[in-house]
């Protein structure tokens, strides 16, 4: 009930913002080169829904693939580094160096390696996401109460059982903080990836609109990206609330 009301208020807020946009453009005579009316943008999207829908799905696929790979490898890295601190000390500096390479420069490389494939974009999304997940997983695993580990050992639990029954669940709140960040970052990665050449995708629509100085379709692409980004973030945040229901207690 409470959640429904909050949702309703959110929708009302969005509608108000839309009205304000439409009204301001009309009342202040803002030139469409700067800011077109919302209704014009929506009408343009409705006129050629196929292009936007295809772009949306394509970018969504790249984002999800990069996010899933980044999340999986990040958690795996965290577990491996917990077990092998020597390996952590060896690889961590390399990871940090890799993260200082601007994503644009890295994007150019990846497209050279993988060509204009969906995989290339997913790799860039992966590149932006695996590091925060690695760092937070390791942080969460290391923060487990040693007395809890001792208790499980006294029950005769081995390292694998302790990882499954205690360390991974205890690290989930930290992991989810990184996953929410990764949800936004993976979309950035996918869109940047598309700028290096592709024919479908929201990034492609953005670029085309920019070259053609088509402000209306530029805004339409921005709206699509916003819907995708917000929706994906909301899904991850919802999963977090369901899975980590106990919060950061203890």
């Amino acid at each position: 009930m409470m959640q429904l009301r909050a949702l309703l208020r959110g929708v009302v807020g969005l509608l108000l913002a839309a009205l304000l946009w439409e009204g301001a453009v009309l009342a202040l005579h803002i030139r469409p080169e700067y800011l077109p009316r919302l209704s014009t943008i929506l009408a343009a999207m409705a006129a050629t829904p196929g292009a936007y829908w295809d772009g949306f799905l394509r970018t969504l696929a790249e984002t999800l693939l990069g996010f899933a790979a980044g999340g999986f490898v990040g958690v795996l890295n965290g577990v491996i580094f917990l077990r092998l601190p020597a390996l952590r000390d060896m690889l961590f500096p390399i990871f940090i160096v890799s993260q200082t390479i601007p994503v644009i420069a890295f994007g150019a490389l990846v497209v050279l390696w993988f060509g204009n494939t969906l995989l290339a974009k997913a790799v860039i999304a992966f590149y932006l996401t695996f590091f925060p997940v690695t760092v937070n997983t390791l942080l969460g695993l290391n923060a487990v109460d040693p007395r809890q580990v001792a208790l499980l050992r006294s029950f005769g639990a081995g390292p694998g059982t302790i990882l499954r029954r205690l360390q991974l669940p205890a690290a989930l709140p930290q992991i989810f903080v990184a996953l929410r960040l990764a949800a936004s970052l993976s979309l950035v990665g996918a869109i940047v990836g598309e700028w290096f050449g592709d024919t479908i995708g929201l990034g492609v629509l953005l670029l085309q609109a920019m070259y053609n100085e088509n402000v209306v379709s530029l805004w339409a692409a921005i709206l699509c990206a916003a819907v995708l980004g917000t929706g994906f973030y909301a899904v991850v945040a919802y999963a977090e609330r369901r899975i980590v229901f106990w919060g950061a207690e203890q």
Partner: protein
Amino acid sequence: MSSALAETAAAMPASAPPLLEMSGIGKRFGAVQAVQNLALSVQPGEFVTLVGPSGCGKSTLFNMVAGLDEPDPGGILRFKGRGCHARELLGRVSFMPQRDLLLPWRNVIDNAILAQEIEGANRREARARALAMLPEFGLAGFEKQYPHQLSGGMRQRVALMRTFLFERELLLLDEPFGALDALTRSMMQRWLLELWQHHRRTILFITHDVDEAIFLGDRVLVMTARPGSVKLSLPVNLPRPRDPALLTSPEFTALKREVLDAIEEEAMKSFMASA
């Protein structure tokens, strides 16, 4: 019935091997000699309580008996009459640390069966057994609750239930009631005694509280200041089941005097050493 229980410890034939036997046990952490030349033995079915000044190595002793820490070479550790390494005791002793350490993502039942689950028990059967035990632990109807929804006393009872469900001959309880308020605490003590009389397990119980040590135990062990060893082993020949009125009886007071004197001597020693 009550006198029979009271006599179990005293009447235990001398030939019965102790469940746990330690002698000449030492443990050093860097420059600190935590425990030195420690000797104790616990008979099957006995309720032994352990008191001592803070920092006397009680927890070190417990960690060794739980199998978490290996004593320094040279001492003798026997479990069921057989010499063994401390690590062989992992999974053979039911250990309850000071904090309840419940897992926040598991509900009451699943926290209670944690140890059995680690042993590889069938989860459905373990749950069913735990469910049947809930009323005895004052937790009936709370099986689906999560730790953050429970009071401190209830959390502690879930932790005790987890310890009891891990069916081992020896229970190690490290100040299980230390964090509870006085009223809840005395209720929990009587309840623990009932539980012990019902289940007949051997218990080694650490506490700071002399009253608690005498009220619960068949025997009170007083530890010396660091380096810790057993200074005094005092049999408590008070009738069971024990009643709170006992706390003000002359026999109780006499025992308490003896224990307090021993503790005070040790507390003075450690005070002088640090001054």
